[in-house]
């Protein structure tokens, strides 16, 4: 049997308190934070893969992400200095004037499930707020969702703003949402476009590797 089967089960079952307790056991056993985290990452990746296969449902995936987060908070208590997990940090939001949030939240959940640290600013997020958060969090990625033809333009305006503020080179920009296309992403100078949450994760992984 997989020695970490109980961890795998806790994450896949979405058992947050179980996952936290198992994380504590690993730290108490003297493992380094990154070693302690390993089996959790494997488990959450399995959850993500099973979701993509249509075998795991959204509620299960979100529960698994919550269990993952509970374990993470034990291993890397928030607000403390020291090593952080991460595939990378993402600041995400739906652009100004647009309150469609479900797709963006799904992208965020999947990014989290794959080990990204996500700061989700919600819907109808102003350019000022994105800029402020980029300065504060210094993310690797900026994920911008837009569901309306009237609000897509905000993605471009934000990219222009980033350039003006001298921030464009500090962050990779990923765009998505129903009206958004590869061509649009290219036209506005984004680093990538993904048609759905699973492909957003693939792209995010590629972008942080570069």
């Amino acid at each position, binding site marked *: 049997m997989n020695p970490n089967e109980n961890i795998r089960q806790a994450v896949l079952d979405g058992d947050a308190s179980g996952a936290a307790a198992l994380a504590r056991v690993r730290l108490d056993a003297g493992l380094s934070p990154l070693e302690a985290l390993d089996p959790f990452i494997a488990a959450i990746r399995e959850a993500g893969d099973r*979701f993509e296969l249509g075998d795991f449902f*959204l509620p299960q995936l979100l529960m698994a992400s919550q269990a993952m987060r509970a374990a993470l908070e034990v291993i890397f208590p928030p607000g403390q200095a020291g090593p952080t997990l991460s595939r990378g940090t993402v600041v995400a939001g739906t652009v100004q*004037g647009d309150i469609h949030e*479900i797709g963006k939240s799904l992208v965020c959940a999947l990014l989290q499930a794959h080990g990204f640290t996500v700061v989700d600013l919600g819907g109808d997020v102003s350019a000022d707020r994105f800029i402020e958060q980029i300065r504060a969090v210094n993310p690797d990625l900026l994920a911008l969702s837009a569901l309306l*033809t*009237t609000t*897509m*333009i905000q993605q471009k305006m934000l990219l222009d703003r980033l350039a003006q503020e001298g921030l464009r080179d500090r962050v990779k920009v990923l765009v998505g949402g*129903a009206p958004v296309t590869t061509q649009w992403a290219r036209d506005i100078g984004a680093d990538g476009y993904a048609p759905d*949450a699973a492909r957003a994760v693939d792209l995010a992984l590629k972008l942080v590797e570069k």
Partner: protein
Amino acid sequence: MPSRHPKFEIIPRALVEDIIGEAFDVLARVGLFVENREAYDLLTAHGGRPAGPVDPDKGTGKLTLPIAMVEELLELAPNQIRLKDLRGETEVTLAPGRTHFDPGSAALFLHDPAAGVIRRPATADLRRYVRLVDRLPHYHLQSTALVSGDVPGPCSDSYRLYLALRYGRKPVVTGTFRKESFAVMREMLETVRGGAGALAQFPPAIFDACPSPPLMWSDLTSQSVMDAARAGLPSEFVSMPLTGSTAPITLAGALVQHAAETLAGVVLAQAAQPGAPVIWGGSPSAMDLRFGTTPMGAIETMMIDASYAAVGRFLDLPTHAYMGLSDAKQVDYQAGLESGLGIILAALAGINVVSGAGMLDFENCQSLEKLVLDHEACAMAYRMLRGVERRDEVMALDLLAELPAGGHLLTHPHTLKWYREEILVPGKALDRRARGADNLADLPTAAQRAQQEVERLLAAPEEPWLDEAVIRELDRIMEAELRAAGAAGLPKG
């Protein structure tokens, strides 16, 4: 002899009453968020009570709406709406016993079989679409079905209305994507109707406005409801509980939420303008929890639609639903299955405005071929609604008594008298011929036949409906709007 229109009752009356009762309680005890300052103040002035902190910047927040307040304002809503086409000639009445079909609205993409792709549409596509709707008689309304990709984003809502007015004749189901657009859209409608008074008397358009589930009226859509109420234009509330995501997973729970959000819309419209025309509509979805998508073709989606329509009818309001559309990406069996079911169920449920024809891919894509095929389903629905009519006192006995062995009725006076009225003759897109070939390649599919129909229907010359002066004025208004948004002028096409 009068016939009985077939009907079906999806939920019993007692459940309808319980849903309404609980929705009133939701508004009175839980409340809802109102993100528009003017709407917040207006509702407060009518008895709404602050139920949480007020956003210091926006001056908005959560309100509870007492039962008596909701009842009082609900009472003011008219129980029927009389629309007229753009020339003010044909009337479309939203009242019990009337069902009107129109295409699904605001698709981002066009299914283009000639080019073999799904792509963003442009002016010429919208023009073809509007003209096709005009030529299909079972669509009593048109909608601003596609969003043109060749104009600046901020104009994409008003520009689609402009094209519907410029090239169509039927009343239009439309809506704003941003607050500022209402003014220019109203101006174009007034131009067509010849003034504000005439606009309110026989509106040529309906404005869709979506509450944001769960239990919120956004800044944009609250504004649209108030603006439309004051202009005398009907607001069609499009509440979209997504089961298990932004609404309870149970169909009954989603129905309570739908009723609460929609009652709040009725209340807001009546507070803005007593007697404002409103439509009890929606576009719920039984969310697919595997893929996180919002299926419109799910049977549970249609069950919620038919049920909330029963709630709306109980409240004596005109009703609407998003039915007759499909989540398929091609004009295929799934598209036909989901759309046909929706159209027939909507007709049986007695829904007044049924939006969705032509649509694929969860409300994201429109297809001219599917519009033609869905039109056949609408024809069948109307035929079904006429019911089985008893034409003769003695229905068959005499005829059968006359018939010799092996005889037929093909030329019998009774056949000649009734065959055109009894049996619907479908259009060319449906195949009822004997099979003429064995090779599959020689047997065109429904989508291929529909494609030919589209071209045949569009080959007829364009008929100008509006006076030259009105057209010039529409062009002027739209051009100014486009230029203000940075475009060089009206797109060609």
